[in-house]
């Protein structure tokens, strides 16, 4: 099938290309309708990745957070018109003890495969999850991002000790908001503390036990476990604070991406017997788990509607440029694209 795709060919330059994509008899063809911009897309778009990385990856269609409507499903799983969230992780093999998102051979849309900025997405029924009726379609656009927090919390639940009196979330951005919200819902008896840099943003965390500016954390405040949702240049400082404010034997989830190596005070990690684990991306099971949570706790998508920032109708490449520029100027919130190309 001839398919029009919108590829980043150089920083801040998107060009249209047509690809002849084979549609296997059991393929799933989805019309993307709602897309959401991730920081990773913004880094590609602004050319903030290493030149060698950009040279290897471009041209590439961006966006790995999206849902759409089924056009054709040869497998018979879905019918035309069904709304499905598309899973960007594309495993090519199964491996024991390795989740699909950690298998090194897996491809990932908007990183090692074309993302969702396409007229139609050719995928397979096992890479899609049905959206429940009545869901806020703008919130559903960033289900993938929420599923990453779901994945991290599911792993936390499996490995962290049962002392769950308090959990600290470092980071007052989108990932911090989503992670704190999911923790609040999953562990209603647990005190949830959020640590951030911006009091205006922290004020939006209305559902947690307390918020603190990172410059004003009481010395005697200690948490049982912690989630690092900072990333970038702030990663090192956040991890240092976590180590200082966590009880011995606590578990620390590392979720923030950094382009540089991050120094960690291993002496104190050893002395406190801490467990640090990395978590990245998600798989189909995490999407399902996230949508089940939305169904059981409608207050979660309702709260997430508050982080929908800019919403843009996209009809051509200049609309894409406008949306990315606005997203970059926004300190908080998700940019949602209504895909009308």
């Amino acid at each position, binding site marked *: *099938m*001839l398919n*029009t795709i919108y590829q980043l060919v150089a920083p801040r330059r998107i060009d*249209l*290309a*047509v*690809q*002849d994509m084979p*549609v296997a*008899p059991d393929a799933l*063809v989805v*019309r993307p309708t709602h897309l959401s911009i991730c920081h990773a897309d913004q880094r590609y778009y602004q050319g903030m990745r290493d030149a060698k990385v950009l040279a290897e990856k471009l041209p590439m269609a961006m966006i790995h957070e999206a849902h759409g409507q089924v*056009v*054709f499903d*040869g497998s018979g799983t879905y*019918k*035309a*018109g069904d709304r499905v969230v598309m899973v960007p992780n594309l495993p090519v093999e199964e491996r024991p003890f390795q989740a699909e998102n950690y298998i090194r051979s897996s491809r990932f849309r908007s990183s090692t495969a074309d993302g969702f900025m396409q*007229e*139609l997405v050719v995928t397979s029924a096992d890479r899609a999850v049905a959206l429940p009726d009545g869901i806020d379609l703008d919130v559903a656009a960033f289900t993938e991002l929420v599923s990453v927090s779901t994945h991290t919390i599911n792993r936390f639940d499996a490995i962290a000790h049962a002392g769950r009196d308090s959990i600290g979330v470092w980071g007052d951005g989108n990932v911090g908001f989503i992670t704190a919200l999911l923790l609040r819902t999953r562990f209603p008896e647990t005190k949830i503390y959020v640590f951030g840099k911006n009091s205006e943003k922290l004020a939006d965390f209305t559902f947690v036990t307390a918020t603190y500016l990172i410059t004003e954390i009481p010395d005697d405040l200690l948490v049982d476990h912690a989630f690092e949702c900072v990333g970038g240049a702030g990663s090192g400082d956040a991890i240092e604070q976590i180590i200082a404010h966590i009880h011995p034997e606590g578990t620390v989830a590392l979720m923030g991406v950094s382009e540089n190596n991050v120094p960690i005070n291993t002496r104190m990690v050893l002395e406190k017997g801490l467990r640090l684990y990395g978590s990245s991306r998600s798989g189909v099971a995490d999407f399902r788990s996230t949508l089940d949570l939305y169904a059981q706790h409608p207050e979660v998508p309702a709260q997430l509607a508050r982080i929908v920032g800019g919403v843009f109708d996209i009809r051509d490449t200049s609309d894409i440029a406008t949306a990315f520029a606005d997203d970059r100027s926004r300190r908080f919130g998700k940019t949602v694209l209504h895909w*009308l*190309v």
Partner: protein
Amino acid sequence: MNFAAILAGGHGTRMGATDKPKQFQLLGERPILVHTLEKFALMDEFERVLLLCPVEWVEASRDLLKMHLPAQSEKIVVLAGGATRSGTVQNAIAWIEENYETDENTVIVTHDSVRPFVTYRIIKDNLEALANYDACDTVIPASDTIVVSEGGTEIDSIPLRSTMFQGQTPQSFRLLALKEVYEQLSGDEEAQLTDACKAFVLRGRPVALVNGEPFNIKITYPVDLRIAHALLGQYE
């Protein structure tokens, strides 16, 4: 109920030195018309997709569909086109009326087989335009200045470019309304008709505009095929 009619009746007289009609020439690894048919055949909105081609290409077309679109070949019906474009469209109407009950909600989306880059959005917009109209035409704003010359040697007038659009396809219609305007055409009018929308315009009936795309090109001349390959990233 919606039907697509892919018009492949041309003999490719403008395509240069080749015996094969242009719609059967390869674009990438498959004939141009196979690409065009596939987009429509995948869409659940269409009950059947009719391919109207030169009578001597009917059997070959069926073979090509079995080869290239086996999963969709049941949905696609291959028919002989007429001597003219309107004759071809009327063959499609006749087949639909013979095989299905038609009513005011029966829709026919006609499309040039040599416009393989038509997008899902354009097709959907055509179908949606018919919620309020009996006919719609896919167009893009004219990028070149249009010059009017009756004699072909001197300019008669130069219309304001902002009011000029270039016609593409699809052109879509409520089937019974299209049949009605065809029946009202005089012999002269029908002979000059290169465009089904014009049948509505001649009768003073409204035709909605749908936004096309600059790349929804018609592969007419050899240079168009080169452009098409370039769009596909396959420079010859």
